[in-house]
Structures are given as structure tokens and as C-alpha cells.
């Protein structure tokens, strides 16, 4: 499945999957934040080294 995903060129999202996927990611980010892990801030500081 990952190989199919890797080589797939489609750029279309279905609305329900876009909404659910976005909610899952936002909830995960909020969860990390509540646990005291500023995950995006940490990534930003790592990416800032480029």
C-alpha cells in the first residue's frame, strides 16, 4: 500500500476524508500540546537549522 501511495500522483481529496483527516491531525497536535510537548515549535527549531 505504501508503494502505491508513494508513486500515486492524484491530487484530489474527498471532503469527508479531508475533514476527518484534518480533525485527527489537529486533535493529535492539541494532545501533544496538552501533554506539554510543543511539537510544531520543536520541529520549527530543527527546520530552522537548514
Amino acid at each position: 500500500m505504501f508503494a502505491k501511495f508513494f508513486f500515486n500522483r492524484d491530487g484530489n481529496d474527498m471532503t469527508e476524508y479531508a475533514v476527518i483527516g484534518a480533525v485527527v491531525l489537529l486533535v493529535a497536535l492539541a494532545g501533544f500540546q496538552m501533554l506539554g510537548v510543543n511539537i510544531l515549535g520543536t520541529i520549527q527549531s530543527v527546520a530552522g537549522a537548514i
Partner: protein
Amino acid sequence: MIWIHLAIILWLGVCAVQDLLRRQVSNWLTIPPFVAAGVWAVWHGGATLLMFGLVSLVMVFSFWKGGTGGADGKILATLAVFLPAGFLLAVVLRLVVGVWLWMRHGRRAHFPAVPVFAAGAVLSIPVSIILQGGF
């Protein structure tokens, strides 16, 4: 940091135009940045690897269920690693656009997602300036 920000926005702009015109994005535009993001994530580990893995997992699952394209997944995972502020805004915009289109055209309506991601990356510039006083 500003040059990587601008390079990602330029890259997303090209991807967004392709997505709008063909509903597809060429692999030469998505695979090298995705691989670079994966290597960067493995190299640095920690939060970067966790986020890259989480986004890839969510997008592969969504792709497996037929709900999203492979290009969208690779672009979003790349964004999560190299431009986290843009990634956050891209996800929020994806939610807003998804809800709006769901209400207008139903839950199985399709839309090109890469322009939405590009808009999120562009919006992250003023947001970064406002929140941090710069990039």
C-alpha cells in the same frame, strides 16, 4: 529560514497549478521533497520523526480508503517537516474547505487539495511575522 520558506511556497505554487489543471501532481515534484523530508526526519528523530510518521500514517490510511490522493499525502508530510507553521494552517484550511464543500456538495465531493496547502503556506508568512516578529 526565509529562503526555505520561499522555496517551499514556490514549489507548492507549481504543484498547485498542476493540481488545478490536471488534478494530479507529477512524481518528480512530490517524491524528491518527500524523500528528503523522510531522511531529515529520520536523521533528527524526536518530534520531527514523530510528526512525519503521524502525517504519513494518516494520509496513507486515507489513501488506502480512497479518500485522498498520493500527491496530497506526500506534500502534507513534507510540509509538516520543513514548514510546520504552514502545515498547521494547511490542515486548518483543509478542514474549513472540506466542511464548506461537504455542506454544499456532499461528503463524497472531491476537490484539489494542493492549492489549499499552498494557501496555508502563504498565510504562514504573515502569521509568522505577527507571532514572532519575523520568520
